[in-house]
């Protein structure tokens, strides 16, 4: 067991344990904060896969953006003072069946392929320069579409979240 494997298991355990807390915790605040650790663990896995730019992007956007947004959502939609931020679960049995089917399928796929699946890894140089070049050449159209989507989402979210105001006739 080398250092690479050890680090992988550390990050995998962090990711999966905190994802368990996200899904099974009764308290929304606990869920939100363990989602933080899930995102950090996934960023660590990205670093192990030599995706340095994506790891930093993950921390900046998920932890700095999406998670803060979700915490705002929790704070704005629950009466935090009343300490009534618990939440229940519904449909546990159908969900267990669904997840068992999905997990069984994935385990079956794993059982039939795990001996042969990609043992040879390639070594990538630092990825930021080549990612930028790819975004400006081969992926230019999706890049522009993504920027328009971001603009539309910005305007749409601002319009939707605003309180309804009487418009002057």
């Amino acid at each position, binding site marked *: *067991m080398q250092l*690479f*494997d050890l680090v*992988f298991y550390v990050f*995998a355990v962090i990711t*999966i344990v905190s*994802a368990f807390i996200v*899904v099974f915790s009764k308290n*929304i605040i606990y*869920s*939100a904060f363990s*989602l933080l650790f*899930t995102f950090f663990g996934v960023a660590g*896995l990205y670093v192990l*896969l030599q*995706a340095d*730019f*994506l790891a930093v*992007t*993950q921390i900046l*956007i*998920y932890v700095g*953006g*999406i998670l803060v*947004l*979700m915490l705002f959502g929790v704070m704005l*939609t629950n009466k935090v003072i009343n300490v009534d931020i618990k*939440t*229940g679960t*519904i*449909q546990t049995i*159908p*969900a267990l069946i*669904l*997840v068992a089917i*999905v*997990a069984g399928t*994935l385990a079956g796929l*794993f059982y039939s392929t795990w*001996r042969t*699946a*990609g043992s*040879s*890894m*390639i070594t*990538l140089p630092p990825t930021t320069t080549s*990612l930028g070049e*790819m*975004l400006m050449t081969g*992926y230019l159209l*999706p890049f522009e579409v*993504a920027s328009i*989507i*971001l603009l539309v*989402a910005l305007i*749409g*979210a*601002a319009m*939707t*979240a605003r309180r309804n105001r009487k418009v002057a006739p």
Partner: protein
Amino acid sequence: MSSLPTFWNEFTAWLPHVQLAHFLIVSAILFALGLYGIVTRKNAILVLMGVELVLNAANINLIAFSRYSTLRLDGQVAAIFVIILAACEAAIALAIVLNIYHRFRTINVDEVSNLKE
């Protein structure tokens, strides 16, 4: 189809050498947990957290395949677009959740069943 002890021996010999399948297993567990969260949670924000878990699982898959195959960086570009769309989705969905809260005073998805008051 090998017998169970042989499988177990091969499996324990395989376990300490991290390969592509290890990353895929972590991603599969994350996907299943996110799916469970989406289906069972009452609170709309926790449903959104489940969606984020599922998207992260997909991203791990994309990046793992971009390292362990000849795809090179194409998988990482796809992962960038997934992150962009996740940010859009979170912003829009939270705006909708705030609106639902203002109208119904609750964000439990099983109680919000009317399109109109």
